């Protein structure tokens, strides 16, 4: 084979490698910020492919989608166009952890997003396999494809997902492959390795897809969507969705199915030692669940539709790398799947990732200017996590080119901030998934106030539209006015009022009290006290809930704000990223090594580096104080 001849195929501000959930946002953001942008994809047919689960959102993930939307990203708008069932999770718990989760029509999701990319001004979407990222003088200059095309670029965002040296596993069958039998990307890793990049293997997996008509749903528990549908995008708030939702189903594994797994476990490539990539503990395969939790005689299995135009059903909770024949046998012993027929088998996939601690919180590489990484290549998992990173990397590629400060959200501002700070500070040992428990300040980082928190920032960098910004301002205004109104309504303890109080299931008033204090009572809420509120005007549900949350949890929110203040103090103690940690007295060797590697941007970030103890941070603070004094004394 003769060598491919290189030719200059175009000149762009930003080139994005990959058109998955990260790539789409990474391409849209700079294009919307006015920069000439290109997205390269291995296949135009796999734009935002949902290769695993057919849903968007869930605990923590739903928060990310709302934040992406608030900043001017696309994910929420796209899923609002294409969802087939919607549920708000955790409604029995407090407002901070209510999480929206919807079922997607996979094909429609892809089609709609592709349309958006195709129609976006300043953006080109081209099929082509990136085989090299060209770096000159520590700076990225372009991307080369397998066909010899060289796209000049001022910045590059790498979003290769699970494609880099992808390898799938199913029992003894091992294949060089991307997800769902698509072609893997085999040349980019080695090209980057030659430039000194280190790669690590990670592993994930997906369950089988079964034919809907062969499943006995009568043996399962039906899980319908919510009566009231709440859209993901703030743009769509107030919109009513009159549609028939498609149900999901809940069933269970059986003792027999567990026995089949135990009998054949040796044929699992993981147990046979074939897979070396790190898998996620929170997303175990069915064989892992059975082998780890030996005392449980059944495990939950959810059956979810993959779309309106297909009979394929997704079997959540049953991902596996067992041989196909074992899978067939095993699924037969799941209640309701006795006669089910396979359309696709479960498989595991292993792929190359980089160490995300090599990145700044802007997701730019520490040593190579204008090179960004986002999504699964950074060791995360999930569409939402990928999209969040894609958005931030895309924004920052534009910020760099426009000569602006990096756009960084910290842990107190957004789940996106938590996610990125976690991976670049602590690194990842297994595919990283966002969880609400990773956020220290989740009472203030609610999904219902993402627009109030972030849209202004999105608008200021030129990403969030004016329409969106004005909508957020209007919401803020309405909420503030309503709060103010309620705080000024005095309710007097008359006989009549107390009769009403008792009828509402509350207790009598002793003194006159403002209406907001009445709403604060645990047994009452905004809607319930309408009878006491003569001047109430109709408001959107979104506004009412916002008002109620701010009233009811005021005390806790205040406490959280105090925590955030403490947090900010350490975040604002900036560290020189070129600091010589070996010069800090009494710092333990491990801490010197870790800090020298991670190079935190603040004392706060330093305190989150694993292997760095509070005592080390005290030493660091002391060192900074000594340095400060030295500076001061020299002036004296």
């Amino acid at each position, binding site marked *: 084979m003769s060598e491919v001849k290189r030719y200059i195929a175009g000149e762009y501000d930003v080139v994005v490698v990959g058109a998955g959930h990260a790539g789409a946002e990474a391409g849209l953001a700079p294009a919307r910020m006015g920069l000439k942008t290109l997205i390269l994809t291995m296949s135009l047919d796999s734009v935002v492919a949902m290769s695993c689960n057919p849903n968007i959102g869930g*605990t*923590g993930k739903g928060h990310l989608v709302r934040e992406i939307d608030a900043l001017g990203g696309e994910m929420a708008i796209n899923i609002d166009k294409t969802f087939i069932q919607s549920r708000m*999770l*955790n409604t*029995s*718990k*407090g*407002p*901070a*952890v209510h*999480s929206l989760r919807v079922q997607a029509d996979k094909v429609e999701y892809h089609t709609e997003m592709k349309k958006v990319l195709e129609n976006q001004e300043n953006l080109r979407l081209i099929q082509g396999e990136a085989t090299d990222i060209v770096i000159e003088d520590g700076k990225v200059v372009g991307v080369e494809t397998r066909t010899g095309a060289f796209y000049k670029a001022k910045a590059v965002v790498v979003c290769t997902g699970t494609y880099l040296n992808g390898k799938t596993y199913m029992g003894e069958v091992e294949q060089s492959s991307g997800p769902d039998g698509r072609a893997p990307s085999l040349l980019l890793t080695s090209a980057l390795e030659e430039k000194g990049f280190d790669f690590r293997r990670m592993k994930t997996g997906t369950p089988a897809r079964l034919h809907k008509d062969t499943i006995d749903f009568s043996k399962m528990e039906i899980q319908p969507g919510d009566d009231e549908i709440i859209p993901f995008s703030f743009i769509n708030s107030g919109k009513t969705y009159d549609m028939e939702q498609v149900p999901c189903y809940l069933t269970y594994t059986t003792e027999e199915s567990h026995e089949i797994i135990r009998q054949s476990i040796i044929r699992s490539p993981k147990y046979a030692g074939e897979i070396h990539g790190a898998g996620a503990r929170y997303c175990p395969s069915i064989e892992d669940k059975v082998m780890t*939790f030996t005392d*449980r005689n059944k*495990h*939950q299995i959810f059956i979810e539709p993959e779309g309106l135009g297909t009979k394929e059903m997704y079997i959540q909770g049953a991902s596996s790398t067992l041989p196909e024949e074992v899978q067939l046998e095993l699924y037969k012993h799941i209640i309701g799947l006795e006669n089910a027929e396979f359309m696709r088998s479960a498989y595991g996939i292993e792929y190359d990732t980089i160490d995300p601690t090599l990145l700044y919180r802007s997701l730019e590489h520490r040593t190579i200017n204008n090179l960004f990484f986002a999504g699964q290549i950074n060791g995360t998992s999930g569409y939402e996590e990928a999209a969040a990173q894609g958005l931030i990397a895309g924004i920052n590629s534009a910020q760099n080119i426009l000569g602006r400060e990096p756009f960084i959200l910290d842990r107190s501002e957004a789940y996106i901030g938590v996610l990125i700070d976690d991976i670049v500070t602590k690194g990842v040992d297994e595919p990283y998934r966002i*969880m*609400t*428990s990773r956020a*220290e300040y*989740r*009472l203030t980082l609610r999904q219902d106030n993402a627009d109030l928190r972030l849209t202004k920032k999105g608008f200021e960098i030129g990403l969030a539209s004016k329409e969106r910004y004005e909508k957020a301002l209007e919401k803020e205004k309405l909420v503030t006015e309503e709060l103010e109104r309620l705080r000024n309504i005095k309710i007097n303890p008359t006989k009549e009022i107390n009769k009403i109080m008792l009828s509402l299931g509350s207790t009598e008033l002793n003194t006159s009290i403002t209406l907001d204090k009445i709403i604060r009572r*645990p047994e009452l809420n905004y809607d319930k006290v309408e009878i006491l509120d003569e001047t109430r005007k109709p408001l959107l549900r979104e506004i009412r809930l916002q008002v109620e949350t701010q009233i009811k*949890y005021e005390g*806790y929110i205040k*406490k*959280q704000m105090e*925590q955030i203040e*403490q947090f900010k*103090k*350490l975040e604002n*103690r900036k560290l020189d990223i070129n600091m010589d940690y070996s010069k800090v*007295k*009494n710092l333990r060797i491990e801490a010197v090594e870790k800090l020298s590697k991670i190079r935190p941007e603040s*004392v706060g970030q330093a*305190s989150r580096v694993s292997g760095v103890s*509070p*005592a080390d*941070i*005290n*030493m660091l*603070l*002391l060192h900074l*104080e*000594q340095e400060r*004094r030295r500076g001061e*004394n020299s002036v*004296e």
Partner: protein
Amino acid sequence: MTIAAISTAVGEAGIGIVRMSGSKSLEIANKIFKGAVIESLDDKSSRKMVYGHIIDGENKIVDEVLIAYMKGPHTYTREDIVEIYCHGGIIPVRKVLDLTLNNGARLSEPGEFTKRAFLNGRLDLSQAEAVMDIIHAKTEKSHETSMDQLEGKLSKKIRELRDEILNILARVEASIDYPGEDSIEDVAYKEIIERGSNLRAEILKLIQTSTRGTILRDGLNTIILGKPNVGKSSLLNAILRENRAIVTDVPGTTRDVIEEFVNIDGIPLKLVDTAGIRDTDDLVEKIGVDRAKDLVDKSDLIIAVFDVSKELDNEDKQIIELIKNKKAIIIINKIDLERKFEEKFITEDLSDKIIIESSMVNEVGIEEIEESIKEMFYSGNLELDSGIVINNIRHKNQLEKAKKNIDDVIEAAEMNVPIDCIEVDLKNCWENLGEISGDTIGEDILDKIFSEFCLGK
């Protein structure tokens, strides 16, 4: 900024030391010092004792002193230091200090010399608080407590409590992040209330030891009461003779009160004595009823002495009135003499008190008095030898905060407040405790630690 402070205990002593640290130490010293042999101090006289006088602005001699200038950085604070050795007693030392302040020094904040030593890299932080407490410790028992802390007894206890909080948190988090997962049950409010109450009890127990912690560090504040010639000074002398006196000290400006530190089998006693005890003056008469009442109110223990050979009079009655509801030991002294004292007044009015008959001249009853003090101190549910004692105000404050937060957790759970809100208080409690064991980083932790260091140390 150059700082100055009196570095020796304030009291009647042979010498008193005023110390300055900072770049202007030398300049200030030369403004107020006039040498007898060398006119003024300079780098050549660094680390040498120089004899001369401190003079005020009008060239009047304030005191005859020895002065030492130590050029930094090889000094305690790594800064230039000047030490002035004056005559003891409050007046000359205060005057010299005032002169340094009038000439550009600033009064040192509590612990500022050590803080500077630390910040300038001369001292390590490693468990500095415990180290400081050892310096503070006036008795062996207190010393042991600080040693326990160094060895991590307190940290171990705190970590146990934190682990328990973490366990509850983990359950809460799992139920939030995995809704609908059948393997994860929602945490019941009942469970939070139960486990929270146990935590609360443990925290409270630690807080309760803190009163005793202060006693261990500062001494049991003990006042000896009695009218003239009942044998107070004999009692004091007997106790001092049998036990090691630790320091003699006149704090502040109250010159009418003298404190003697003694150590009775590890129990530090700060015997608050009046000048009157040594002569024949009566405490109540000399310092007034109000002041006596004030002293009594501030005391941890009262030793009231009565003379059995005299009839009970008004002064005795005043004393009985003063100590009625206080922790007190009653000494019926001079049992070697004929009894004229009607004991029933005491047994009626002070029936709950320990009453000891003694004869100081014959050394009868002294041992019994000491035993009683020990017994009173060790009684109650406090186990001194195995238990942890909180003897640091910062730790106590953190425990108080932790208790407040766990109170809020329990109260909120009782009101069915959403679990993710309750978690805010639970996490705060976890952080409060972490600040004690050093597992939580507070930005101002250094300030907190050093503000406790004793003045000028």
